[in-house]
């Protein structure tokens, strides 16, 4: 006799994994309430909205990080430009709820304000690490979400 419960069990397991993964992002301080706000904007007319916004952030932010790194390497130092670049990164990160990125951007801005180049360098390295970790976590999360299907995207957004 065919085991009709097996696909259901896999689906339930996937849903549990997704819920647990998302909770861990909040518990470990990677994401904040703003991420939930993004999910509130997801509906049947834009079922992949959250993934699209995050994809845009993950596409834009390496460019900003690279520009910051190049600007740090220039002489004379241009703290005004550095502040402007990190301001954009902070704004984008805040918009998706990337709280660790946002906080490290604030640290970087404080170093700019103090004209502390070494502080900026250290902070940039932290931002790059945080970015890499966040990218890996979110890509895994959306990969799981895709496995449960588009309908689940809209349903899951209300949890």
């Amino acid at each position, binding site marked *: 006799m065919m085991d009709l419960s097996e696909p259901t069990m896999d689906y339930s397991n996937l849903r549990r994994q997704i819920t647990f993964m998302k909770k861990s992002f909040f518990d470990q301080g990677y994401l904040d309430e703003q991420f939930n706000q*993004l999910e509130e*904007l997801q509906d049947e007319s*834009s079922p992949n909205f959250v993934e699209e*916004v995050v994809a845009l952030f993950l596409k834009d932010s390496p460019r900003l990080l690279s520009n910051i790194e190049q600007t740090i390497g220039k002489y004379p130092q241009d703290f005004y430009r550095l502040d402007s670049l990190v301001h954009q990164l*902070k704004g984008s990160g805040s*918009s998706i709820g990337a709280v660790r990125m946002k906080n490290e951007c604030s640290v970087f801005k404080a170093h700019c304000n103090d004209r502390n180049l070494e502080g900026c360098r250290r902070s940039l390295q932290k931002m790059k690490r945080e970015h890499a970790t966040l990218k890996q976590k979110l890509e895994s999360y959306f990969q799981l979400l895709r496995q449960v299907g588009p309908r689940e995207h809209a349903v899951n957004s209300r949890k």
Partner: protein
Amino acid sequence: MASSLRALLVEDTAVQRMVVSAMLRNQFHCEMTLAKNGKEAVDMFLEGNTFDIVFCDRDMPIMTGPEAVVKIRAMGATDVKIVGLSDDDNAMEAFISAGADDFVPKPVRPETLGPMIQEVINKKLEQSATLA
């Protein structure tokens, strides 16, 4: 809340533009127009476009939010509600001095936008009733 307000969002960062415009469109049913900096916003007014409400970031290339607000008001667009946006609370003074009506801190939340949207809707209804 159904509004069909014509909203202009002036924001240089693509991610923020995407999030805030989705909020205004999906949750408040605004008809959205987007500008990437203050100059694009000013050009839209110069081209004769009209809006019920403008949401404007402060720090943008080419022309900042407060600079754009000064020029928009100087054109005679005194009826449109202009709301400044920034993660810096000190930006409120710059926006209000420039002629903006209100200020919303970033990240933008629907609960702060709602009353402003409703105020503009109410004003439009009053104006329609007066003309009728």
